[in-house]
C-alpha cells in the first residue's frame, strides 16, 4: 500500500493533467454562454443598424416574405387547428371539475388565445419551420464559402442576408399568428359545440378582451418575429465543420429560437401583468 503510494506519478514529478472537475465545466459553460450572448447581441445590433442605414434590395424582402409566410401557411393552419381543438377540450374538462358552467368558456379561451397562446404556440411552430430553414440556408452558404465571397465584395452578410429575413419575418409572423388565432378560435368553437354543447353565439364572446390583452399579444408577435431570424441567422452564420456542421447549426437554431421565445414570453407576460394589471 505505502509502496504504491510512494510510486504515484505526481511524486515522481510527472503530474498528469488533472481531469476537469465540476468547477471547470461550470466555468467553461459560463464563458461559452457569455461569448454566445455577446455575439448574438452584436448580430442583433448590426441587423437594426442595417435596417435603418443599409442598401435596399427591392425584391429580397418580398421573396423572403413569400418564403417565410406563404410557404408556412399550410403548416401553421393545420397545427393551430389541432392546438385550438385540444386546448378547448382541456379547458372544458378543467371547467367541468370546478363549476359545470360553460357560459364563460369562450370568453376566457379567446382572452387567453389573444394574450398568449396564439402568439407563443404559433411562434414555436414557426421557429421550427422558419428557423430551421434560415439556419440551413445561411449555414450552407457559409460552408460553401459564399458568405466569404460576399465579404470580398464588400457586402456585409448581415445586410445582404439577414435584414430581408428580419423584416419579412416581423411582418409575416404577425400575419400568420393572427391567421392562426382565427383558425384556433374556429376549431375551438367547433369543439365546444360538439363536445360540450356550447352554442356558437355564447362562445363568440369578446367581453373579456381589452387593450391590454391586444397590445400584449401584438408585442409578443413582433418580438418573436424579430427573435426567430436573428437567433437562427446567428446560428447559421456561426456554422463550421462542413456539411455536417449545417445539420448541427439547424439543430441549434431550432432549440435556441424556441428557448428565446419561451424566455421572451415570460418577460413580456410579466411586463404586461405589471403594466395592465390582472383584471
Amino acid at each position, binding site marked *: 500500500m505505502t509502496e504504491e503510494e510512494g510510486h504515484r506519478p505526481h511524486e515522481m514529478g510527472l503530474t498528469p493533467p488533472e481531469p476537469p472537475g465540476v468547477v471547470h465545466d461550470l466555468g467553461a459553460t459560463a464563458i461559452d454562454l457569455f461569448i454566445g450572448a455577446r455575439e448574438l447581441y452584436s448580430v442583433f445590433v448590426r441587423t437594426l443598424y442595417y435596417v435603418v442605414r443599409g442598401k435596399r434590395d427591392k425584391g429580397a424582402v418580398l421573396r423572403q416574405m413569400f418564403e417565410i409566410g406563404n410557404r408556412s401557411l399550410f*403548416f401553421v393552419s*393545420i*397545427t393551430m387547428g*389541432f*392546438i385550438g*381543438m*385540444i*386546448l378547448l*377540450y*382541456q379547458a372544458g*374538462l*378543467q371547467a367541468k*371539475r*370546478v363549476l359545470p358552467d360553460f357560459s364563460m368558456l369562450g370568453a*376566457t379561451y379567446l*382572452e*387567453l388565445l389573444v*394574450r*398568449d397562446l396564439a402568439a*407563443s404556440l404559433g411562434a*414555436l*411552430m414557426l421557429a*421550427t*419551420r422558419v428557423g*430551421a*430553414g434560415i439556419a*440551413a440556408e445561411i*449555414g*450552407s452558404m457559409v*460552408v460553401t464559402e459564399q458568405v466569404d465571397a460576399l465579404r470580398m465584395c464588400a457586402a456585409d452578410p448581415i445586410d445582404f442576408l439577414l435584414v430581408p429575413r428580419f423584416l419579412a419575418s416581423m411582418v409575416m409572423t404577425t400575419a400568420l399568428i393572427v391567421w392562426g388565432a382565427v383558425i384556433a378560435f374556429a376549431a375551438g368553437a367547433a369543439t365546444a359545440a360538439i363536445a360540450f354543447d356550447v352554442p356558437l353565439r355564447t362562445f363568440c364572446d369578446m367581453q373579456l378582451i381589452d387593450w391590454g390583452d391586444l397590445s400584449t399579444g401584438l408585442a409578443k408577435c413582433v418580438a418573436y418575429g424579430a427573435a426567430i431570424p436573428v437567433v437562427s441567422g446567428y446560428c447559421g452564420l456561426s456554422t463550421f465543420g*462542413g*456539411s*455536417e456542421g*449545417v*445539420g*448541427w447549426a*439547424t*439543430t441549434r437554431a*431550432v*432549440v435556441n429560437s*424556441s*428557448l428565446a421565445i*419561451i*424566455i421572451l*414570453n*415570460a418577460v413580456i*407576460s*410579466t411586463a404586461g*401583468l405589471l403594466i395592465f394589471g*390582472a*383584471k
Partner: protein
Amino acid sequence: MSSSATESATGSRWTSVAEGTGAAFLGIAETVGGMGVLFGRILVRLFALPPRLDYPELKRNLHKMAVKSLPIVVVTALFTGAIMVIQAAPLVKRVGAEGLLGWAAGFSTIREVAPLLTALMISGRVGANNTAELGTMVVTEQLDALRALAIDPVAFLIVPRFIGIIVTLLVMTLYADALALFGAAYTGEGLLQVDTRTFYNGLTGGQLYFGDVADGLIKSLVFGLVIALASCHFGLATKGGAPGVGRAVNATVVASAAGVFVLDYLVGFLLG
C-alpha cells in the same frame, strides 16, 4: 381565341393545383408508410429472443440524449411554470380564489403544457441531431460498410436510438413536471403574493388526480414514439449528399412538430 386561351390557362392552373395536392398527400402517405415499416422492423428486433440491440450504443445514446439535454429542459420548464401562473393570474383574481392558483396552473401544466413543450424541445435538440448523425452516416456510406461486415444496421444503430429517444422524453417530462410546478410556485409568490404553501395546497387539495399525471406521461410516450420514428426515418432516407442532410433535418423537425400536435389532440381526446 383569347377566351379559349384563358380557359386552357385556368384549366392548367386547376390541374396543377390538383397535382400539387395529390403530390402532397402522396408525400405524407409515403412518410407515414416509411415510418410504419421502420417501426415494424424495430419491433421484430426488440421482440426477438434475446432482443437484438447493441447495449453499449444504447448507453452512449442515453447519455448523449438525456444527460446532455438536461439544461435546456430545466430552463424551459422553469419558464413554462412562470408563464402558466401569469396566464392563470387574471382568472384567479377575477374569481378571487387564491387557493385555486395552484390547481389552475398545475392542471394545464401537468396534463398539457409540460409534455408538449418538452417534446418540442427534445424534438429540436435530440430528434434533429439524430437525423443529422444518421444522414451523415448514410451519405458517407457507413451504413453500407456495416452491412458489408454483416452487422445489422437496424439492430446496431436504430433500435438503441429509438429506445433512447423514448426513454429520454419520458424522464425529461417527469423532470419538467416537477420543475414547472416549482417555478410556478415561486412566480406566484413573487408576482401575485400567493404563498407557496397555498399554491402547493391548491395543487394537492383533491382536484388533481394521479390520472392527470399519467395522462401527461402517456402523451409523452406517444410523442417520443413519433419523434424517434420520424428522426430515424428521415435520417435513413437521406439522399443527395451533404445538402441532403440539411433537408432531412428540416423535414424531421417539421414532421415531428406536426405529428406531436396531431397526436396530442388524438391522445387527449381518447384519454378524456
